[in-house]
């Protein structure tokens, strides 16, 4: 039975969305993974070559920054921090939020009250206040930053999922699964989850970009990584002061973020469409 389904999935591979998405995301991930080998000199300061314009020097194709560091190397090296923050924080928040949302929407009653009151408290707390409190208590570091992002963002997914579960729960196909005696676990993960994953994927792809940018403000607060370690958000923030006479300092890390998010969006759209056999959402 799975051979036929596999072949329909295969035909979906040929869609343009999928090819572009894989090329973009895969290419960026490849560069970032092997950045140490490809660009070993990311941190090398050369004050004699400050703010070189891009596309004029073969060895500094994207130009250099105010300390004479090669921007291309730094963009690629910066991806390490940015992608880790972007992917891990979102993945953590999705897993936590979706499970919480499923539980509170499906069981309602007691668990719903507990989870949703937690969520309300979470939403009432301004992010920056939460971040500062967090640093004061546990200190900075990449891991802590990802943890902070997870605990501040799972609520979005939990609310979204809970809403969908509440409307799906009373639909007849869920009731008929219950009537047959299907276990709660299977109803939650085999019937409910595939039917509500569409909007979650959309939110996920948006939040990856959001978190890559948030990382720079958190770094500014001292929560993130060592400020000398390159990251896209950090480079964007540093480049702001030079935007009038050296646009390239901030444009290239910005482009890197943009392309990553574009690739993820394409992949997300493809995933959403290929998960929906009715093809209603595809254009």
């Amino acid at each position, binding site marked *: *039975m799975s051979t036929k389904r596999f072949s329909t999935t295969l035909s979906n591979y040929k869609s343009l969305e999928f090819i572009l998405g894989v090329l973009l995301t895969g290419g960026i991930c490849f560069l970032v993974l092997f950045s140490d080998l490809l660009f070993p000199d990311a941190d090398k300061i050369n004050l004699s070559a400050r703010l070189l314009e891009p596309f004029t020097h073969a060895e500094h194709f994207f130009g250099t920054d105010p300390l004479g560091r090669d921007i291309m190397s730094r963009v690629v090296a910066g991806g390490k921090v940015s992608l880790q923050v972007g992917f891990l924080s979102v993945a953590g928040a999705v897993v936590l939020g979706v499970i919480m949302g499923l539980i509170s929407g499906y069981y309602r009653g007691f668990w719903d009250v507990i989870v949703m009151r937690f969520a309300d408290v979470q939403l009432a707390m301004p992010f920056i206040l939460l971040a500062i409190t967090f640093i004061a208590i546990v200190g900075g570091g990449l891991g802590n930053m990802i943890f902070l992002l997870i605990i501040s963002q799972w609520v979005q997914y939990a609310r979204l999922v809970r809403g969908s579960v509440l409307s799906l729960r009373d639909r007849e196909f869920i*009731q*008929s*699964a219950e*009537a*047959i005696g299907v276990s709660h676990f299977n109803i939650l993960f085999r019937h409910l989850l*595939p*039917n509500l994953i569409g909007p979650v994927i959309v939110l996920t792809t948006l939040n990856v970009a959001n978190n890559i940018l948030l990382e720079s403000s958190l770094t500014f607060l001292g929560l993130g990584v060592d400020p000398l370690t390159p990251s896209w958000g950090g480079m964007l923030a540093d480049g702001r002061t030079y935007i009038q006479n050296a646009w390239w300092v901030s444009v290239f890390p910005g482009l890197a973020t943009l392309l990553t998010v574009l690739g993820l969006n394409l992949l997300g759209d493809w995933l959403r469409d290929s998960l929906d056999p009715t093809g209603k959402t595809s254009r």
Partner: protein
Amino acid sequence: MTDTSFSPILTVENLSVEFGHTRVIDGLNFSVMAGRTLAIVGESGSGKSVTSQSIMRLAESTGASYPSGRILFSTENGEIDLLSQSQEEMRSIRGKDIAMIFQEPMTSLNPVFTVGDQISESLSLHKKLSKTEALKESVKLLKMVRLPDAEDMLKRYPHQLSGGMRQRVMIAMALACRPKVLIADEPTTALDVTIQAQILTILNDLQKELNMAVIFITHDMGVVAEIADDVVVMWKGKKVEQGPVKELFANPQHPYTKALLAAVPKLGSMTGERFPKRFPITVMDGDGIRLVGEEKTQETARYDKQPLLSVRNLVTRFDSKKRFFGRVTHRVHAVEEVSFDIFHGETLALVGESGSGKSTIGRTIQQLQQATSGDISFEGNPFSAMSKAEKQRLRQEIQYIFQDPLASLDPRKTIGFSIAEPIKTHNLIRGEQKIQQRVHELLERVGLTKEHAERYPHQFSGGQRQRICIARALASNPKLIIADEALSALDVSIQAQIINLFMELQEEHGIAYLFISHDMAVVEKMSHRVAVLYLGQVAELGSRQQVLETPTHPYTQRLLSAVPVADPTIVRSSGRLSGEIPSPVRQVGNEPTIVPHREIAPGHFVAGTL
């Protein structure tokens, strides 16, 4: 009847409608005259609704185009072709000269405006009346559709009205400007039979009063027989037959019309039969018709054994309104002290209108709903004494089929997965290979092929989907199947086939059915015994013959008299039905009285003490 020598007020000439490259209506011709009702009948997908939307020119917003044809409408200034009017010009015609009522009265009324606002809107728009004049006129209109307390009704919101009242408000709105043509698109399909009968009488009377032309779109031949003067039968986007209603019913020409009329279940057609019976069905075969199936009496019920399922004094209530601090002030008394038995191989029909508690009984038996008190026992074992494992086992032995087959199948799973699910859940067969084999067998048993297993629910037609749901219910070898309005969403020709399938399966496997339905004609065909429910209590219970041939409880009589009969020569007795279906919601402390039953014949119980 009005003079038929009038020239037609609306003529559809050679109309074709396309959506993209799909032609949904092909060369349609018909005309309506003032004071007459033209019924357009056909099954789902025959193009009848697209026809009405094309007359209103509402179909374009969903992407329709008109490659050929004219729709001529006669006005004071001669005939105009509606298809060549701009949308701007149509806006002054819609609602004023041609009005429309829809199937769903809830969704066609705006929930945030009062009834008065909505009726007077059309009056001030087309007739340029002032607010006070418009409200005065609205009261007149509401009285015309026989709504009680018309003044009070103006201030109410749609959610405060029942379905029948909403539909009457819709009619009042449609008639606000005294239109020349009224298009009614399945206006009574969503209503209970007694309410349907009321609405049909009102429409009939008003038509004579206002000398309107009515185009009545329906799939229900009983309603056609009752209300129509002329009939257009549509099939696959084409008109296959047209004629005066009596001639068409007496002497159908086209094979499709013959098949359609043969499939319509007629109440009273089985008078004198002791058991339900399977009949051969007339089906279309190319351009002709042929009979499929055999005539066979359904002698499957095993009254000699102990009952399969016994329901004793079942009460199911749920809280409906709560005060701020969570104290319950109102409860829905869905089921009150209901008792009955179902025997092996027997079909027990639960009939009643909305709010009668028939679905709640089914859901309580299936453990989708908790009973408030009373007990249900399965093969002598009371639910209350069952362990968790035994209760889980019941979910294998009792299966539930829902009304809407599309909604009851997971849209993201192949139907092979859905049918295999009960087998896997209860570990009935081990090994993927063997499960697949069983799924294929089941599909073939219900008239599909094994290739269908890889497809998704949306790729099937309504009838096929209900077959899939039946296959799924059969997968766990149940002893009892609860069919909750399982036939109501299907076209009549499909319905007849599914009825026969149900009966064949009963004969093969000795399955008992709890058949929940509001359709008396289908109940007559299928069931061994019938229980009539009214406000959560059993009004009458007995064998099919006892309940349908000698109905004793006034509610049963009322229900039976409201069923439209697909025979235009029968004129419904003039005793007009009125009144709303009472609500089962009661204040806490205001308990309903439990009416005792008396046995008037062996096995025939009627509520009431007389």
